[in-house]
């Protein structure tokens, strides 16, 4: 199969672009080039890129487009992590193994810093990778569960916009909430 750079014809291209990892693994794989907002170039296998609904529809909408897909909302670091995750998911699609998948997902998440996790969320959202978004949201929720308000603010880098009086009133109102909070 020729790479898309050599073939400007369109109709056959689009059919090839539909994700069929099972049948395509045997054939030589086509690469898709993604460009992050900080101008880094990522070459990924087509099957991986088609996991990104946004990229997929990019090709569906404009099959004649050049090969480089610009991702203006996405920086290189979270993008590389997202690609890494999706590569593995493709393997599990071909050979379903729930236990292994669970294990991989757990390991993938635990080794990431808080910032990495939070940074990946808008990327997963922009690229419309529902499964990843789901596990990321859960992982973040798990990390802030039972943490102090200060911890949560710091986790998300949120500034406290309550006045001292407002905060004191809210804290009085919710005095009970301070039970069962983990040490930071």
């Amino acid at each position, binding site marked *: 199969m020729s790479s898309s750079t050599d073939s400007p014809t369109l109709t056959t291209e689009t059919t090839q672009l539909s994700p069929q990892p099972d049948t395509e693994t045997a054939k030589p794989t086509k690469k898709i080039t993604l460009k992050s907002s900080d101008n880094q170039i990522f070459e990924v296998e087509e099957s991986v890129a088609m996991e990104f609904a946004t990229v997929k529809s990019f090709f569906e909408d404009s099959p004649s487009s050049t090969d480089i897909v610009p991702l203006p909302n996405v920086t290189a670091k979270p993008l590389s992590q997202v690609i890494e995750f999706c590569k593995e998911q493709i393997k599990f699609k071909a050979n379903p193994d729930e236990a292994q998948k669970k294990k991989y997902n757990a390991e993938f998440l635990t080794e990431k810093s808080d910032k990495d996790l939070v940074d990946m969320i808008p990327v997963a959202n922009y690229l419309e990778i529902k499964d990843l978004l789901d596990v990321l*949201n859960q992982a973040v929720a798990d990390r802030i*569960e039972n943490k102090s308000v200060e911890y949560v603010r710091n986790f998300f*880098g*949120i500034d*406290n916009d309550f006045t001292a009086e407002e905060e004191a009133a809210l804290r009085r109102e919710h005095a009970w*909430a*301070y039970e069962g909070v983990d040490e*930071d």
Partner: protein
Amino acid sequence: MDHRRKKVTKTEITDLPDCLLEEILSKLPMRSPALGQCRLVCKTWLHLISETYFSKIQFESHPRMLVKTIPETYRSREIISARIAEGVNGRTFQVQRSKKLVPEKELPTANFELVNSCHGLLCISEGKYRNVIHVCNPVFREHITINVNRPLPFYLNSFGLGLSINNDKYEYKVLRTFCLRTNRSAPGYPRAEIYTIGTKRWRRIGNPHSCIEKLDFNTYVHGYIHWIPDQKLLQFICSFNFGKEQFGQLPLPPTYNGNDVRVKLGVLKDCLCVSVPEKVGSVDKFGIWVMKKYGIKRSWIQQYVIENLYPDVGRLKFYEPLIFLSTGEILISFNGEFLACYNTKMKKLVKKSTITQTKGGIHAIAYNPSLVSLNVVARGEKVRALPEPKVTLC
């Protein structure tokens, strides 16, 4: 608790859009510390967590229930909040999470009965004569206390909480029915009052056909609550609409003869359903009927038959259907003594539940947690948080 923690260096500003934050917050478990804490993070979060659309996306996938054990002594130590899930791989239903709500911690009083719940708010009555009720949101440990008018011991109050929706105006209301007696031995006249939360007063409304005795597990459908009247020969089901503030009557299933009062109400897929005894020859069975079109007698359909009843038939009072699972299993309350799972395909009780074990009785009600804050829906009332700071008098 407010001593300074060690300063953590701040990560750079992460600006997640509200819709993404909302999804993260919706993954937090129904546990007050987590959600309560998050309301204090900043104004945006406080707003997000109070938003009703957020409360809608959460917690609706599994039915949930509250079970109160009724020990011999009048005081109850706890109620159990259990979430029921469909069994996987051919297994029967599972209790996914079971949490205890401890009186004076998550609940305002230890001397109470469960009344019912509606859209995340729980109603409980206090004391032997039920002259005080509390409306609580256990998620936030908020509650308001409502005293009844003319609290005389022989009024025998009973209640029901409901939501009235009129032109996008949402109001929680408490219905009180009581039997007016001139003295303890005189016959009673059913009377009713209603309390719109936030108005701080009871209003007299038209008389009910019959007082509520005790609401069944879940009887709230289409803005109405329903109950079985306290009569020797049953002719109808009582209803009350919270929007119109009107009492009504609904027909019973066609084959039911009215003599056997072991009748229990429930909700199956947004329809009112009823469990009625049906004798076939000398064999006792229960039919579970569903009213497919609300208010239409012809629309009663027999959905299930519960047979092979538990051996001790002589003692049998009722089979109350609680939760219907898509696997064809029904979680039932047997005589108010224990909870068990009935399999409609195998036609027998398959599993006794371990949600609670008690020698006394149990009373279970449906409850779906929500993030409806009383601070929002009960403006004008004194909303208290639990536990309240101890006041020491010296």
